[in-house]
């Protein structure tokens, strides 16, 4: 079956295109949409990687909540096209090239990091991660960090409230 490979490359190309689109478009909401595209394609990749639950959560939380929040704020502030000011010379002349350098570096490094034979899919692949096993790990082994994140969320909510209040 060649199907997984096709799916992978389709999603990969889609994701990269989305990322590039995020950079080049000027309308913030378009950037948001392209980011959603990236996320959805990543979710499909997760499915391919045998992590359906993570894929679902990726869409549910990332695309469905966080990005909606972004869109909402953009609409609320009615953010128009961004003006391409270049007040930071260093960002213009050094930052961008270096960014690309970093891109190449990481890609190159990661590409060679694992011996290319590691099976990620196909016949010999392990079965997809069951939700049960996942939850067991999350609530037994990683209980403390889990609780910590819950506290983090709480604090974040409070912080958001305090920050966004007008009458200060």
């Amino acid at each position, binding site marked *: 079956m060649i199907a997984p490979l096709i799916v992978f490359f389709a999603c990969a190309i889609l994701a990269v295109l989305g990322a590039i689109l995020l950079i080049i478009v000027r*309308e913030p*909401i*378009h950037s948001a*949409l392209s980011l*959603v595209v990236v996320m959805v394609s990543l979710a499909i990749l997760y499915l391919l990687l045998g992590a*359906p*639950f993570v894929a*679902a*959560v990726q*869409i*549910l939380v990332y*695309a*469905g*909540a966080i990005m*909606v*929040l972004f*869109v*909402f704020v*953009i*609409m*609320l502030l*009615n953010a128009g096209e961004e003006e391409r000011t270049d007040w930071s010379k260093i960002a213009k002349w050094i930052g961008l090239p270096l960014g690309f350098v970093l891109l190449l570096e990481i890609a190159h490094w990661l590409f060679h990091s694992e011996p290319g034979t590691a099976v990620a899919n196909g016949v010999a692949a392990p079965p997809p991660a069951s*939700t049960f096993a996942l939850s067991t790990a999350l609530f037994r082994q990683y209980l403390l960090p889990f609780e910590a994140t819950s506290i983090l969320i709480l604090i974040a909510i409070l912080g958001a409230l305090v920050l966004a209040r007008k009458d200060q």
Partner: protein
Amino acid sequence: MEFISQHPVLVVSLVKIALTLFVVMTALAYLTWFERKVVARMQSRWGPYYVGAHGLLQPLADGVKFLFKEDVTPPSSDIVTYLLAPFLALVLALTAIALIPIGPPDVTVLGQPVFAVSNVSIGLIFLFSITSLGVYGVALAGWSSNSKYPLMGGLRSSAQMISYEVSLTLSVVGVLLLAGTLNLSDIVSGPNGQTGYWLHFIPKWNVFPQIVGFLCYITAAIAETNRVPFDLPEAETELVAGFHTEYSSFKFAMFFMAEYANMITVSCLATILFFGGWLSPFGGGEWEKFIPVLIFGALAVYCLYDIATELQSIIHKLQFTIVVGLFLALAAVCFFFPQYAMPPFWFILKIGIFMFFYVWARGTLPRFRYDQLMSFGWKLLLPVSLANLVVTAVVWLVMHP
């Protein structure tokens, strides 16, 4: 032929998809008719009456009207998103339905389960993730129209959907605790699903232990689908038509269908989670097939009586004879293939009840004010569903040491 036998998955899936699409589309169309009829009765009117017998062809006429209306695209709009929005809305709404099992997973054709387009192991989460994307349709429509009212409508709806999605999800978790699975058909007929009885006569449906959760769910569901009394995104008295003000002809129709598709989806979910899905309240004995037979028979008889007395024009009489035939055919199917017909029958019956509930609410309830909406969602619904979750968890722990 041997192609079919070689690729059963592909074929059956395609057939299922096509069938589902057809059925759902028709249902959408006739839901509008149903709604108009019921509301009309509540307001002691006749409702659609002349296009076809009892206005049976009204939806068709509407469809044609939508198709042939002029398609206006506001010049100042952001064209890409403007076009994208309605597609997004409708596609997502239809996709969600594909996850709904309307019958037991063990009924198969060519070794493929027939009653669900796709039976995902974590169907519930997927369903929620897809519906959660539904916000984009509305929000983008509101934004891309690039005019005041749609923007407000979009803002409202996105805020409202985000707010109520939380309660929606939380109210379901209680059921998940009871069922111990995310698979929709397992929730209905799994190892600790909803088969069986309490005290030999109360069906083991989650609605009884989870009544609070159910109430939270149905409230949040109505809000999620932007229906009365939570239809602020399209509050015509304040925002003309809300987010789809600038949409005309078929794009508008897509939003319209998306809304009804969402209604169906949440009703299906409610049925599966709280009302035992396709399970019959009488334990599914062999005799039950007579229930639908009798019902359809009665309907057929009523139609015949109608033909005899009520209907004047010959065309209407003809149409109704077709309807009679349809009813008789359904009755026959239910009688001869009960194992294929009964589960969908119960399922659709339950959904029908929910639909009636929707329409009923629309016919009776006034609309919320926006701040009321928000404070209701955050200050009442969310805490209640949370409390329900906690209580359920505690009780569950006590009962399963």
